[in-house]
């Protein structure tokens, strides 16, 4: 009983935290700082519970008479839980400065953030399509609200409506797909669908194929792949930058957590069906993302557009899954790498915006290297990581994805992705060039900024993680610290837990 409860604790803690924050926000006397403290506290407790099972190989269904197989607790879900909670803590702490400077931030924001996190964690645990849909909608609706939080920005109405209408519309496809799959197989439970597919491999599965295609639509929409990428720029632009970071990194991980499970358990034997379609989608996603990223002048939009390119790399991993199960490790590692890099990059932009309120375009970053050398150095690290330059975690992640893709026999696709990487150097390095190669056009002095605060320390911590992930134990081999090998073995363990009986 107690043992089973421990498995539930992370997700329950987040839910309780969300409820408490909601009640707390009814009182005017609490300031944003108090909400940050309370929400961080709950998340740290939840993280503690999640880490409790870190490194174990397990799969269990606690209170199965209540939940009836709809949620599952295994190493895989636990891995994603840790990543999601850590990402949310990162967003809250890095955004501490930004949130306190903007008048529109209210306590409810943190309650909604935790609700959305609850939905995402549930998504990672979901073992059944309807549950997954509900979890996805809990997360999505919370994010819809947060997207429209910035009452001072005229772009927010466009952002929230675009996202809400399109998101709900695409959600209907998920339901339709579920219905079709249910019509054929008589179940919505993932492992039972897998069982059906394996035992009826010879029979007519066209309903299942259509159903999978529908579900795939939702997946592609949520990760912003072609042809569903058009919402990204406007939504990311109109949302408060913390939410942009949250959507680009944490939400994406949650989406992958469920679909990776579904692909690996269910649909892997059918991969020939979507292979051609996904290959063309990947190519176009990479091309469009690259094109959009080159043409942006606003840094936030550039980061948003480049997130489409990163989606393309992840799709490359998904394609390779059909031939090569090890590709799942590379996808998961890439998600972690992107989480760290994007968290740092978006977070740093938010920190800079909070002070000056003008730094949004490339031009506004001119001279940052002289004004605030430490921040510029950190930003450089994140840009390197996003561009996949060695000595950052982004390089190792790209190495894994490309290696597994080539190993699965998709060498041409990998070369195409490499070309996109080569171009990406242009738009990432442009920002570095702006920071260092041009004189500052503001006459303000350095002392005006207060950089010794939680936001900056947190960004610094993320930067250290980015570097550590890229170097690992290679260079400091005489100091026994956990290396990137550690992450990889955890990832491997997670995937293995999917196939435990």
């Amino acid at each position, binding site marked *: 009983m107690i043992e089973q409860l421990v498995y539930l604790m992370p997700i329950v803690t987040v839910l309780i935290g969300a409820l408490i924050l909601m009640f707390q926000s009814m009182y005017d006397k609490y300031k944003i700082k108090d909400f940050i403290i309370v929400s961080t506290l709950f998340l740290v407790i939840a993280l503690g519970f999640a880490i409790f099972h870190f490194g174990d190989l397990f799969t269990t269904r606690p209170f199965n008479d209540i939940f009836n197989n709809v949620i599952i607790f295994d190493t895989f879900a636990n891995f994603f839980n840790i990543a999601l909670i850590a990402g949310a803590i990162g967003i809250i702490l890095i955004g501490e400065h930004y949130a306190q400077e903007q008048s529109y931030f209210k306590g409810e924001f943190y309650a909604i953030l935790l609700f959305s996190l609850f939905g995402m964690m549930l998504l990672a645990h979901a073992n059944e399509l309807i549950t997954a849909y509900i979890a996805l909608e809990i997360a999505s609706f919370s994010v819809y609200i947060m997207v429209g939080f910035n009452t001072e920005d005229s772009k927010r109405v466009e952002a929230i409506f675009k996202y809400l209408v399109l998101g709900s519309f695409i959600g209907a496809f998920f339901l339709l797909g579920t219905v079709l799959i249910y019509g054929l197989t008589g179940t919505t439970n993932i492992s039972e669908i897998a069982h059906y597919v394996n035992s009826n491999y010879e029979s007519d599965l066209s309903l299942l194929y259509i159903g999978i295609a529908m579900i795939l639509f939702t997946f592609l929409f949520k990760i912003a792949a072609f042809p569903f990428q058009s919402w990204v720029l406007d939504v990311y632009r109109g949302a408060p930058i913390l939410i942009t970071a949250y959507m680009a990194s944490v939400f994406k991980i949650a989406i992958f957590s469920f679909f990776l499970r579904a692909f690996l358990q269910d649909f892997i034997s059918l991969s020939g069906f979507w292979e051609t379609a996904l290959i063309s989608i990947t190519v176009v996603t990479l091309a469009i993302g690259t094109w959009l990223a080159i043409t942006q002048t606003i840094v936030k939009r550039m980061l948003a557009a480049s997130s489409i390119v990163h989606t393309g790399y992840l799709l490359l991993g998904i394609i390779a899954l059909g031939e090569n199960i090890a590709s799942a490790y590379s996808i998961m590692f890439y998600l972690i790498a992107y989480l760290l890099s994007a968290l740092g990059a978006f977070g740093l932009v938010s920190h800079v915006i909070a002070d000056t309120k003008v730094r949004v375009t490339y031009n506004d970053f001119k001279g940052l290297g002289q004004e605030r050398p430490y921040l510029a150095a950190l930003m450089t690290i994140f840009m390197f990581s996003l561009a996949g330059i060695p000595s950052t975690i982004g390089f190792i992640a790209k190495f894994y994805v490309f290696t597994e893709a080539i190993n699965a026999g998709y060498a041409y696709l990998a070369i195409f992705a490499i070309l996109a990487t080569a171009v990406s150097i*242009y738009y990432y390095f442009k920002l570095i060039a702006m920071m260092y190669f041009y004189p500052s056009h503001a006459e303000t002095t350095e002392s005006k900024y207060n950089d010794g605060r939680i936001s900056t320390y947190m960004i610094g911590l993320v930067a250290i993680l980015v570097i550590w992930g890229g170097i690992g134990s290679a260079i400091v081999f005489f100091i026994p610290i956990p290396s990137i090998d550690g992450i990889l073995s955890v990832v491997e363990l997670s995937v293995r837990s999917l196939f435990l009986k």
Partner: protein
Amino acid sequence: MGAADILSFIIFLPAIVAFILMISTTKVEDVRNIAFITTIIILVLVMKIYLNFEPKAEMQFVTNVPWISKYGINYNIGVDGFSLTILMLIAILIPTSFLLLWEGRTKGYWINMLLVQTGVTGTLLSLDIILFYFFWETMLLPIFLIIGIFGSGNKVFSTIKVTVYTMAGSLLMFVAIVYLGVSYYNEFGHWSFQFDDLTNLSLLTYTEKFWLFLAFVTAFAIKIPLFPFHTWITATYSDAPTGGVFLLSSIMAKLGVYAVVRFMIPIFPDVYIQFSNWFVFIGIFGLIYFGIAALMQDDIKKMFAYSSASHLSLIAAGIFSLNSYGINGALYLVIAHAIATGGLFLLVGLLHDETGFKTIKDLGGIGKKAPIFTFMFAIMLFSNVGLPSTNGFVSELLIIFGIYQFNPIMGYISGITVLIAASFMLWLFQRAILQERVGSALQMRDLKVKEIIGLVPWVILIFLMGIYPDPFIDKFEPTVTHFLDDILRIDEIIKSGAVK
């Protein structure tokens, strides 16, 4: 610290010092002094390695520890005859170049110079191909910042151009590296990116090898630069600050040559032999083409950029000449050219800083104003054109022998075209330095004692290597022989008639 750890120490000391300097608030003079002392410490350590090195073909001072064990990637470093010579070269060039760059630099400049040193030594000593790529890319980043921040003219454009150019090349190479690793995995059932292991690959088809070879050669040809991948050099060399040009021309370009010898030839011996004709041709074509282009230039930096490319083409021709004359000569020229071009670029940088001019027609009358400067300039120039008793002579002679043995006609052509280099260099010397200037005399100071001390080791090396080359060649000769006999088995192949 064991003997093997010294290499790791040599690689990472500059980076560690650079990071400490970065977060501290030290004055710029102290930063410079600390950076200089760091490079001197490294020089001493490299000396120690050089003296303890036994003239054998195999790797020595090897450190091999797992890095990413799932993919068989190791932190594997070691030194053999090839790398030792270049390591020694870098260790001498960098501290002495600091002496010539001594005044008027900022903190970021010195920090980046230190970071470059970590990048280049790491590239040189890596025996794991992923580790090699790691350092290969990392060494570009400080250069990116040096050119962009401290350059002149249209510096941002030049910086972005050179970065995207070289990165695109390296990324192609990256695909090839990954492909090699995957092939190894498919053949042997476990992952490895060790350079030794990759030479055992036997299942690659000829087409695969050809494309992989091409990907590698593109990356290295951009860095060297070989025709037709040279279009970045003029803009970059003329906009980059002196230190940046020095690093690019005299150190990084050599690493491109080194990488060809270290990685491409052992991994793709048959493609290397098959296409040697083409590459010798491209080399000699480049020698002529860049020589003529250099004749046309009025900007001294651009002229040296082309002349440097011209010499590097000769080195490439030597590398592909398939005999020990050519390869030994090419390696010798790598050293000779690094010293001579490095010196010339630093002196031209000084000239530019003092007079404000870098075009030949604006200069003149330097000889009277600054005799020691002129003397040093002349020695570097003579070494560069290969005057007898300088090291340039020995190496060019060896290469021309090598090319002649490979193909007599190409040997004649290369012998004649080396003259072009001599002609434009001496012409430049006459016009820019010796001849009286039209109009008022230029403001030009002579070399300071510090700068002379910096240049003296180079001058000694130029003559020592030119008059008594044996001890230097002895260090890398066994490796070259090992290459030709054990890896390429040139004799057998020539006997079997596969290559004319």
